Each structure stands twice: as structure tokens, then as C-alpha cells.
């Protein structure tokens, strides 16, 4: 704070200035000893941001002279700093305090006597300035803070907001008045969290603080993850208040989720690699043995008459050898990277042909329903492998029926993934053929669902399944730059969703949004 100090004697001026400096060192004093000088300084600095905050007049003895000076200081100046008259005049004495007050009228503030009192006045002024500065800083901090701060009061059995920091508008897209509505929070928090509220409140009352995370709909209706940090304040009157902060955790949660998925994929890849090496070595030995068995079988059949009783046994050995040969081929799928032949494949005819084949092999009480939209997607891939995907999924679906009648739905559409869905699917945005295979069989629990694509993982009894079918499906889909997702519920059924990149965006024009009009082809 800057003070213009106008004194009539340099000696008296320096004494007072020194005393002020000692009692209020933060005050910057500039002393002048003539009226023209005082007027000039006020004139020069009137437009400065830190112009004089106070003018102090000292030692001007006669009240008439003082009145004139005050008058001149105030004349023609729009932004006049307050004037403090420092007078030694004593109240009630002739020419004393009352005379001074009368002389300066309304144009100045007068202070009688003690310098200490003057310093206190300055301190008060300074404290005011510091306070405004702090408030300004706090407001700036709050506007740049990533956390929204709030205050609640416990009333009518619940917590009602009494204050919310203005940055809520920028961070969560709600205005302060919106956020102050009593049911604003409960009507925007994710429904899953609502039932946890009583437990959270109890915990807060018990421990005095609470740190929790939940999902919340922002002003655009998008779900965001919020980290909520609360502290309980007990007022002397016995009421409760809560101060807290909301931090947006959406990005962190997304990263966390994708890290978990990546770790899972890495574990699966390592397992596949190890099993691949092992399977490859075993396959080599098995193939050599099978070559000997199959060759000898042919020799043996040449050695006996076609109607000899042993022929029946030889035929069975032959069948078993062929099964073993196929099994080894499937195991070998892991010992080398699956490189699909790449040709343009129209998925609809492929699905139709495969389902016709499935129809002839699966029991009649199993209903097979295929449906297509009019997009007719084409993908770049290996028809044999894609055929195998469908056969494996349908066989699994059939086995999930456990001999009961049921239904398998195979549906082909074209999907366009935007930035959000493609981040979720971990695919580049674009057009994808979407093949859905759904059954109403027994379904899977979470533990089975998580391991369903692992090689050699099976829930079937020994001899009924190799545990390779779905891991082969997974490997084929990945080799076609696609993804496969599984959803399942015990007692309800299982759905596999496969997304494969289409060859040409032009081929799917008109497909988007038309998935509602499915041509149904019921082969059941």
C-alpha cells in the first residue's frame, strides 16, 4: 500500500515516517513538503494501478489552512484517495479536534492523536487488501482445479448441498443452481450405486471421512467415473456438515480396464506360445507314429481277403487313425502362426451353406435360425477357417443344450464402429461384418466365461472334447484382424459376437441403421 505523506516540516516528517515504518513496515511512504508537490504527485499517479491509497496530512497547524488544502486536494480529481489528518490537537481544546473536523468537513477522515492508532488504521486497510487478494487467489485456484468442491448439510435424513464450486460447469457440464437441487446427485448417479448410499453414509458418520468411487451421468448424459472424497464436520450446535471433492476418474479407469485386458491377453498369448511349442513337438512324434500305423494298415488290408473277419478291426483302426490325424492337425494350429489364405469372401452364402450342413448333422429338435440384413458384407479371409469358426460355435451351442430341445440363432449384419465402440472393441474405427451366434443352452458362469478361449480348457468330460474348439475360433478371428466377444449367463444361454473388417466401405452403403429389417431364414 502506498501512502502520500504531506508534512509542513521535513524534520517532523521524517520522525513520523520512521514511526509508521516501524509499526507498519509494509506501508510504502512518500513524503512531500509543499502543496504544489503533493498535487503534482497525485496528478502523476492518478492513473497508476498502484496509485496512492491514502493521503496523510501532518502538522498543518491552522484549521483554516487545513480546510483550504483539503479542498484543493479534492478538487477536479475523480478518484480521490481518502485523506487522514494527523493532528496533535486535543478534543475540546480551542482549535482542537473539533475544529479540525469542521475544517475538513466531509472530504477527509480525521484521526486525533496517537500514531499507533494511525498505524492500526493502515493495518486494517492492509488486512482488507490481503483478504481481497486471498479471495481472488482462491477463486483462481478453484477455477483451474480439476476437482469440484462442495459442501453439504445433513437435513431431513439426507445431505443437502449448500455450496458447489463454479468449476462444476466446466468439468461435469452442470450449472451451480442445477447442482444445488436436493435430488440432483441421486438422480444422476448410476443406479447401481444408489443401493450403496446408506452404507456409505453410515461409514462416513462412523469414520468421519470417506473416499469412494462411482459412475455418474454428466451434463451430456455420458457416464463418468468419479472419485468422491468426503470429510464430516460436526458443528458446535450438533448438526453435521460434509465438505468434499469430486474428481473425474474416467480416463484413469479406462486405462486401468485396458491394462487388465492387455495383461489377460498377454497371459493367454504366453500360454498359447508355450503350449504351441509343446504341442508342436508332440505333433511331430505323433505324425511319425501315425504314418507308420496308416501305412501298415494298408499293407495289412492287402494281405487279407476282403471278407476276412479281421477286416472289420482294420477298418476301425483306420477310422481311429484318421481321427488322431485330425486331432494332431488341430493341435498344430498352435505351433505355427495361423496365416489365413486371403480371398474376398461373401459371408452370407458361406453361412447359408455351413448352416445347411449343420442342419443335416444336428438333431431335429434343435432349431437353427439364420437372419441377415441387406448389407451383404464381404471380408478378406480364408473360407475354410471361417467355416470352422461357425461349425465350432454351433457344435458348442448344441452341446450346451445337453440333449434338450433348443435354438441356435446365427445373425449377420454390418456394424460401423465409431471412436468409442472401437476403443471398447480395440479395433480401428470402420465397417465390420458382425456375426452373432446365440444359443439358449445352459450358459456359463463367470469363471468359465473368462477362460473360454484358453487352449485345452474344457468343461466337457474326458473324451468328449479337446478344449481346443473355441481357442481355435479365437485364433482364427484374431488372424483375420477381428475380435470375438462372449456374453453368457447360467440358465439363459450364450452369445458370441464376431467382428471382422469388411473389404470395401462401398459394399456396405445403406447397411448402417438397417439392422432392424432382417430377412429371416428359418431352417428349423
Amino acid at each position, binding site marked *: 500500500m502506498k501512502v502520500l505523506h504531506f508534512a509542513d516540516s521535513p524534520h517532523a516528517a521524517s520522525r513520523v515516517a520512521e514511526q509508521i515504518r516501524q509499526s507498519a513496515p509494509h506501508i510504502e511512504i512518500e513524503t512531500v513538503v509543499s502543496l504544489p508537490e503533493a498535487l503534482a504527485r497525485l496528478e502523476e499517479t492518478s492513473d497508476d494501478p498502484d496509485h496512492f491509497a491514502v493521503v496523510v496530512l501532518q502538522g498543518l497547524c491552522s484549521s483554516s489552512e487545513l480546510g483550504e488544502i483539503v479542498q484543493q486536494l479534492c478538487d477536479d480529481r475523480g478518484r480521490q484517495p481518502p485523506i487522514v489528518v494527523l493532528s496533535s490537537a486535543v478534543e475540546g481544546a480551542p482549535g482542537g479536534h473539533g475544529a479540525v473536523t469542521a475544517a475538513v468537513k466531509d472530504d477527509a477522515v480525521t484521526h486525533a492523536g496517537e500514531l499507533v492508532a494511525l498505524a492500526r488504521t493502515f493495518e486494517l486497510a492492509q488486512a482488507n487488501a490481503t483478504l481481497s487478494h486471498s479471495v481472488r487467489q482462491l477463486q483462481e485456484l478453484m477455477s483451474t482445479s480439476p476437482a469440484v468442491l462442495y459442501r453439504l448439510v445433513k437435513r431431513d435424513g439426507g445431505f443437502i448441498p449448500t455450496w458447489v464450486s463454479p468449476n462444476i460447469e466446466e468439468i461435469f457440464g452442470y450449472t451451480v443452481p442445477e447442482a444445488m437441487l436436493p435430488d440432483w446427485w441421486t438422480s444422476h448417479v448410476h443406479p447401481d450405486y444408489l443401493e450403496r448410499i446408506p452404507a456409505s453414509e453410515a461409514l462416513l458418520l462412523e469414520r468421519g471421512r470417506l473416499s469412494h468411487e462411482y459412475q455418474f451421468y454428466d451434463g451430456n448424459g455420458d457416464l463418468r467415473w468419479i472419485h468422491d472424497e468426503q470429510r464430516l464436520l460436526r458443528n458446535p450446535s450438533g448438526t453435521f456438515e460434509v465438505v468434499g471433492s469430486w474428481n473425474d476418474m474416467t480416463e484413469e479407469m479406462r486405462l486401468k480396464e485396458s491394462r487388465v485386458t492387455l495383461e489377460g491377453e498377454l497371459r493367454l498369448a504366453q500360454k498359447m506360445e508355450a503350449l*504351441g*511349442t509343446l*504341442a*508342436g*513337438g*508332440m*505333433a*511331430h*512324434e*505323433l*505324425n*511319425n507314429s*501315425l*504314418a*507308420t*500305423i*496308416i*501305412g*501298415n494298415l*494298408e*499293407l495289412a488290408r*492287402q494281405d487279407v481277403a476282403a471278407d476276412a473277419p479281421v477286416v472289420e478291426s482294420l477298418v476301425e483302426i483306420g477310422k481311429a*487313425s484318421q481321427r488322431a*490325424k485330425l486331432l*494332431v492337425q488341430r493341435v*498344430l494350429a498352435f*505351433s*505355427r502362426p495361423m496365416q489365413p489364405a486371403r480371398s474376398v469372401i461373401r459371408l452370407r452364402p458361406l453361412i447359408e451353406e455351413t448352416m445347411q450342413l449343420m442342419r443335416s448333422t444336428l438333431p431335429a429338435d434343435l432349431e437353427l435360425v439364420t437372419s441377415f440384413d441387406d448389407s451383404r458384407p464381404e471380408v478378406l479371409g480364408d473360407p475354410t477357417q471361417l467355416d470352422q469358426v461357425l461349425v465350432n460355435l454351433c457344435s458348442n451351442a448344441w452341446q450346451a443344450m445337453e440333449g434338450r430341445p433348443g435354438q441356435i440363432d446365427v445373425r449377420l449384419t454390418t456394424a460401423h464402429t465409431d471412436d468409442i465402440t472401437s476403443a471398447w472393441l480395440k479395433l480401428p474405427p470402420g465397417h465390420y461384418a458382425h456375426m452373432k451366434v446365440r444359443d439358449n443352452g445352459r450358459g456359463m458362469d463367470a469363471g468359465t466365461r473368462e477362460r473360454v478361449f484358453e487352449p485345452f480348457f474344457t468343461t466337457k468330460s474326458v473324451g468328449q472334447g479337446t478344449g481346443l474348439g473355441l481357442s481355435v475360433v479365437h485364433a482364427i478371428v484374431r488372424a483375420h484382424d477381428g475380435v470375438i466377444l462372449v456374453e453368457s449367463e447360467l440358465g439363459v444361454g450364450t452369445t458370441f459376437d464376431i467382428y471382422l473388417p469388411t473389404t470395401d466401405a462401398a459394399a456396405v452403403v445403406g447397411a448402417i441403421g438397417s439392422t432392424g429389417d432382417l430377412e429371416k431364414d428359418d431352417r428349423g
Partner: protein
Amino acid sequence: MTAILLVDDDEAFRTMMTRTLTRAGHDVVEAGDGRTALRMLDSHPVDLMITDIIMPDKEGIETIVAVRKSHPELKIIAMSGGGRVRADDYLEMAQGLGAFRVLRKPFESEELFKAIREALP
């Protein structure tokens, strides 16, 4: 009568192959590894060599390379059970190095006879 050198480290497989080929009217000599095969080629001139690719002592690939140098006119059929990491690439490599045909074990005798007919028309 065609003279065939059969190279494979699996004795049971060799026995079966020799019986199959002999019955079909071929004259067969056997070797259990690549080194022996190369030695035998010097003493027993043959029309065709049928060799496994993955063997102890001298791998089939090395054997093929050596035979292509010492007996450039000799036709070679390579076989493999595959399976070991990148073993399939060995079959392709064998073909690239001059094996006339490659057979993936296990194979039917008809596949074998077809390959022989094509190698020695």
C-alpha cells in the same frame, strides 16, 4: 525296376515304407540318417531318394543340399511330420532347395505312389 534310397531315423516307419515300396516293385535301400545316406549314394547308385527332414546327426535339409551338389540329377522326395516350430517352413525350404515333391506325414500310399510316378515318369 526303380532303385530308391529311403532315409528316415524311425525304424518302424522305414520297415513299413520298404514293404510298401517293395510290393509296388521298387528296389529299396535304407539309411537311418543323412550321413549314412550320403555314404551309401556313393556305393549304391539309385534313381530316387525319399528323405525325412528332421533327423538326428544330419538334418534332412543339409542332406538335400549335399546331395544336390554331389548328385545333381538325383530326384528327391522330402517328408516331414511337421509340428516342431517352423517345421512346415522346412518342407517349403526343402522344395526351394530342389526336392521334387514334399509329403506331409501321415500320408496314404496313393499319395506316395503319385509323387514317385511324377518324379520318374
